[in-house]
């Protein structure tokens, strides 16, 4: 289990983390969701024993991250924010190097990395620097897995990666979970949250909510409407004057409008009609993590 108790981290005057607490249970795929600058990387560095918290304590498998850092370093696999690979070494050389660093070989742990490695194999003699973003990400993951860690800590593994590679990556994580790995992963993509068992939403160094993705969206306190109009930008401006409105945000080609409980479809329709806007569709929807996140932010 990863235990985080009242962790704070200050850099000079900046408070990167403010009394953060949560647990990651064994076998979980746990998501730490929040924008850049929320404190995700600081938390990862504390857990990976690279930083000492200003306050509070954390442990992995009952090993304290400060006192027992040597033990922790043996049981975790870590992928820092940037893909930390040797760009001038080939795929094979990178893997071999990291294998020997952990005193093991690719063959010994082939089982765990097989699926990912097979995707990399055609490029095994290519330099890491010449790989595409998606491939670099797969290689970095393989390197983090090479010593069969019990805990996998991935700091923004999908940043700067296209939707396809991102989807592949999450599929790999879910597969790894079936092999008993405990994973803590951070991401600024709200949609990624829905693939986790449990998520912590973090903003400005504070945890806003910890729960399963399902519960987080269920806890969303308002009725949420999806409105599609011809010119959503214009519609959003007009909606500012809608008295029942709690919040309104653009979501792709639609608008998500949170309204007071008593509001019904007719109210919205007539308001739009008064302002010469014709809605293509108006319906009640289930909120998404991003809706919940924005609700918690405001």
């Amino acid at each position: 289990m990863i235990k985080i108790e009242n962790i704070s981290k200050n850099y000079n005057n900046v408070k990167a983390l403010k009394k953060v607490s949560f647990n990651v249970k064994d076998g979980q795929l746990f998501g730490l969701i929040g924008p850049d600058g929320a404190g995700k990387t600081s938390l990862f560095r504390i857990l990976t024993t690279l930083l000492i918290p200003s306050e509070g304590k954390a442990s992995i498998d009952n090993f304290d991250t400060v006192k027992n850092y040597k033990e922790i370093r043996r049981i975790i696999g870590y992928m820092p924010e940037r893909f930390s690979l040797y760009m001038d070494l080939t795929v094979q050389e990178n893997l071999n190097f990291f294998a020997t660093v952990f005193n093991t070989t690719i063959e010994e742990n082939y089982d765990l990395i097989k699926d990912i490695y097979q995707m990399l194999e055609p490029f095994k003699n290519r330099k890491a620097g010449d790989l595409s973003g998606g491939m670099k990400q797969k290689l970095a993951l393989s390197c983090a897995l090479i010593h069969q860690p019990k805990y996998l800590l991935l700091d923004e593994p999908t940043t700067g990666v296209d939707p396809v590679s991102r989807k592949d990556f999450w599929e790999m994580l879910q597969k790894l979970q079936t092999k008993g790995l405990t994973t803590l992963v951070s991401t600024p993509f709200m949609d990624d949250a829905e693939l986790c068992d449990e998520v912590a939403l973090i903003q400005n160094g504070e945890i806003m909510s910890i729960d399963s993705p399902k519960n987080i969206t269920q806890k969303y306190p308002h009725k949420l409407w999806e409105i599609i109009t011809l010119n959503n930008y214009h519609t959003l401006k007009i909606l500012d004057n809608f008295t029942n409105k709690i919040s309104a945000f653009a979501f792709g080609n639609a608008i998500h409008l949170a309204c007071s409980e008593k509001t019904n479809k007719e109210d919205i329709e007539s308001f739009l009609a008064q302002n010469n806007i014709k809605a293509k569709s108006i319906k009640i929807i289930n909120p998404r993590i991003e809706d919940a996140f924005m609700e918690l932010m405001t």
Partner: protein
Amino acid sequence: MTAEKVIKVKKLNKTFGKFIAVNNISFDVKKGEIFGFLGANGAGKTTAIKMLTGILSSTSGEATVAGYDINKQRNKLKENIGYMSQKFSLYEDLTLKENIRFYGGIYGLSNKQIKQKTNEVLERLNLQKIENTLISEIPLGWKQKIAFSVAIIHNPKIVFLDEPTSGVDPITRRQFWNLIYQATQDGITVFVTTHYMDEAEYCDRISMMVEGNIKAIGSVEQLLVKYKSKNMDEVFIKLARNNENI
């Protein structure tokens, strides 16, 4: 919307040795449009943007941006475009005001114009209080909004945005897109890349690059119908998955 075309690309090619980074792409972008330029990592997006902004010369084919040839009239071209990316935007060790003044100076604005623009930007973003704060001390989301305002400080015909909202929180991301809409109201054409597919849906038209080719182009509705998808995420995956080579 007038049919004036501010970007015209015809059979544009770029090869590095044997590697074809951009393979005979052709497309137009209309004035005032928000044009989403999507593609997987390594599909050739960055190379294409570099050519269109006059940083990299093309191997063959032709293209004009804001009416200027991308190979022959680079200086004129650069005066008429703005550029902002996630990686490079503002000088961290200069204050907000100093950054605006610097970029204004680069584009040949007079002192009076710079002063006026500075006030405009500060007012629009509501940042008067932090005008003398170093950029390094400003949160990422605000920085990106400032960077965008700076990129259009000289009223360019077109602004190129390369993953401008990567890592920005959801509310600020939407505020950023509001700025984009405002800019298009002023007649600025926006050429944008993103990995957020909901943002792709904010665009008027989208092109999708796969392996150096433009595999699809059209409005969100057209693409959703054509590829029988619920959202752009699906469209993207369908298009990119057909070519498994990464």
